[in-house]
């Protein structure tokens, strides 16, 4: 293979466009692989055990579309009940599993009976089926119904189980509602992503454990609000303060020593992956695999024209906007902020002009982790619940936002987040709800293809 470089360059643009076509072709084997049988219910065999059941309404009618989740020794999985109300999920290891019925997916007027424990813990053996029964009664739902359609919290780090809005209705009201949800989601995503972008800008590190900083904020808010019993506002302030402290400590004990040892950024990136794994499973170790609700009271709903939001969401948006404005002021108008941008531009030049790079990096870690914590608290409130993998599920959206805006450019992260938020929410108008995130990730790949420096990044050679 002795390809001439010049020829390669000439072809590169063409190859780039080809990739888009190839992406479409990639889907072909799936579409043309011939008549495939529909996946039947789980059948137990030597390596598979089944958890199954049937959900019926209080009147005895089968209920389709109820979200069920199973978590335990072989990981977690989720499904929705079929047209006849039955559901089954395979597991691949013996052990105790928690089975959760997502009460928000029940139709209006149906609630769990007092006898049904939810989540329900049961022993599952390989090569056998375990039946789990949830009894429903008529009445008000046991918890407030989520008005927001965005929900990266799920039992498996993937996507929300609700399949409600699968691109059927395309009216003005729905467009407005999705746009509003998208802006809210984008603003909260921006809070979480700015730290990722600043850390990348100042140290060159792609922090794969940033999602866990978001989870940490939300879980700390849960701990102080629900377990300690502080009022929400105090709990949120404490959670954000502790998140910021965790950033300071992380830099002081882990990243600063690694930089001093001259461990390269790629090596550090793999360290963040290990850290992310340890933290994620650590959260699950202490708090289990279930959803954690930061507040349990029913939300006040505010309707403005076609858009319905909760009062909590509106307050969250105000907090997010004020915080983002403060961060902008900090970066643009204060000495430390200017120094931060100088380090982002060129650490060596900044150091030569008398800026203490390590001190700036420490501030960036503290600020970034604090913002991620705040983003986590607000996101946990917005989605009605948090869980051990909330941040992990958001991580790639944050990377998409940061890359779209231009890696390392703080304001790029804001712009990118808003775009990603809108894309995620609006795309559910045209593609199935559970493929929304795939759309955002596709944008990530397309941006790298056509404008790798992002919307606001400088055009420079990246490679």
């Amino acid at each position, binding site marked *: 293979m002795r390809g001439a470089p010049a020829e*390669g360059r000439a072809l590169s643009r063409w190859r780039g466009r080809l990739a888009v076509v190839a992406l479409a072709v990639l889907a072909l084997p799936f579409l043309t692989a011939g008549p495939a049988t529909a996946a039947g219910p789980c059948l137990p065999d030597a390596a598979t055990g089944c958890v199954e059941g049937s959900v019926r309404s209080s009147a005895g009618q089968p209920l389709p579309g109820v979200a069920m989740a199973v978590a335990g020794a072989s990981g977690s999985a989720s499904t929705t009940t079929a047209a006849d109300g039955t559901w089954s999920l395979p597991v691949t290891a013996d052990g105790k599993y928690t089975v959760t019925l997502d009460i928000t997916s029940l139709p209006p007027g149906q609630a769990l009976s007092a006898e049904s424990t939810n989540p329900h813990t049961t022993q599952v053996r390989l090569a056998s089926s375990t039946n789990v029964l949830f009894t429903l009664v008529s009445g008000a739902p046991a918890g407030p119904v989520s008005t927001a359609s965005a929900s990266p919290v799920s039992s498996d780090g993937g996507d929300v189980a609700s399949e409600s809005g699968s691109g059927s209705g395309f009216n003005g009201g729905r467009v407005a509602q999705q746009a509003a949800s998208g802006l809210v989601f984008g603003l909260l995503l921006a809070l979480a992503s700015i730290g990722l972008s600043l850390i990348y800008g100042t140290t060159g590190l*792609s922090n794969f454990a940033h999602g866990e900083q978001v989870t940490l904020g939300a879980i700390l808010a849960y701990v102080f609000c629900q377990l300690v019993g502080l009022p929400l506002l105090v709990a949120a302030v404490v959670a954000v303060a502790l998140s910021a402290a965790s950033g300071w400590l992380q830099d002081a004990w882990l990243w600063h020593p690694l930089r001093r040892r001259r461990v390269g950024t790629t090596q550090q990136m793999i360290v963040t992956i290990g850290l992310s794994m340890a933290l994620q499973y650590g959260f699950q170790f202490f708090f289990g695999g279930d959803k954690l609700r930061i507040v349990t009271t029913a939300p006040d709903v505010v309707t403005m024209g076609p858009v319905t939001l909760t009062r909590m969401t509106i307050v969250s948006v105000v907090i997010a906007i004020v915080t983002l404005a403060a961060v902008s002021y900090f970066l643009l108008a204060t000495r430390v902020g200017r120094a931060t941008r100088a380090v982002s531009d060129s650490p060596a030049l900044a150091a030569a002009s008398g800026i203490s790079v390590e001190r700036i990096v420490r501030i960036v870690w503290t600020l970034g982790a604090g913002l991620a914590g705040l983003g986590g608290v607000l996101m946990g409130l917005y989605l009605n619940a948090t869980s051990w993998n909330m941040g992990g599920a958001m991580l790639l959206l944050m990377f998409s936002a940061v890359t779209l805006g231009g890696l390392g450019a703080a304001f790029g992260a804001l712009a990118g987040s808003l775009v990603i938020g809108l894309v995620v929410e609006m795309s559910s108008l045209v593609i199935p709800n559970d493929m929304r995130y795939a759309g955002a990730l596709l944008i990530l790949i397309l941006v790298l293809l056509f404008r790798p420096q992002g919307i606001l990044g400088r055009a420079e050679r990246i490679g």
Partner: protein
Amino acid sequence: MDWTRILTNVAGEIIAPTTAAYALAAIGLNIHFGLTGLLNMGQAGFMLLGAYGFAIATIAGWPIWAAALVAIAAAAVFALVLGIPTLKLRGDYLAIVTIAAAEIVRLIGRSTALTSLTGASSGLRGDSYKATFQALSPLPDGTTDIGPFSYSNNFSNSWWIRIVAWAVVALACLFVFLLIRSPWGRVLKGIREDEDAVRSLGKSVYAYKMQSLVLGGVIGALAGIIYVLPRAVQPDSMGRPMTFFVWTILLLGGAATVFGPVLGSIVFWAGLMLIKSVMRDGIPDTVMSTGQIEQLGWVIVGVTLMLLVIFRPQGVLGDKKELAINVR
């Protein structure tokens, strides 16, 4: 504490098909990372595509060789699609793109829109695609006991899958051994060490990187087939954590070595089983539930990965001079 049972379990992990599948996936990643220096963070995506390709083609009635070819083709196309936009960019871009692409494969696989094909989040049952593989077995039906191990000859978690899986791993090792010594392999190593130097010799770095990405991805797809043969195709069990386990295995055994991935996989799964078995027996259920022991196991894996990268990036078998973990 029942040491006989614990040690039997641990020894069982050493020959388990899952261990072989992860070893094979790590061999593929070794071609990417160990030889060429590509940061592929989406190996699970290649495995999942291979598994889907094989299972869906078999369910559609295709013979086993055609189904395997579908898996290989799917992985090759996936590698091309990923490589075209990213191989000219900096290394961490490839990392972000591959991790996102693997996630897209999983999200599409578990989407209800394709339920008739992929079975959505409950996946495809093993029984629906195992038959052609089991029919190939020359072994008689029944169960064979060898030492403490007792497995069915042909069905599901069988001796047959173990024989085939480890044979494939052995072939892959031989292949990598020959590759490392070939002129082609030397160019790859040159790219890993200094891309510009290789370019100045008139080699097309881009083409070599692409060939490496396709080759390692195809090996990953084969690993995916082996991984799902004793179980079911479940998109959610083949997500990001799987990629990270493969990375831990590769760095544990030693990147850029022939037997590193195999040793890494055996040490990883046997060690994990040992730790979990001892904790299950030693820690009363009131202190730590079975689920928590499981999670503690993964926490230990995460911490191991961090410590490995910081203190012994060359792994057990590696040579520190061989390994340039800082790719450009």
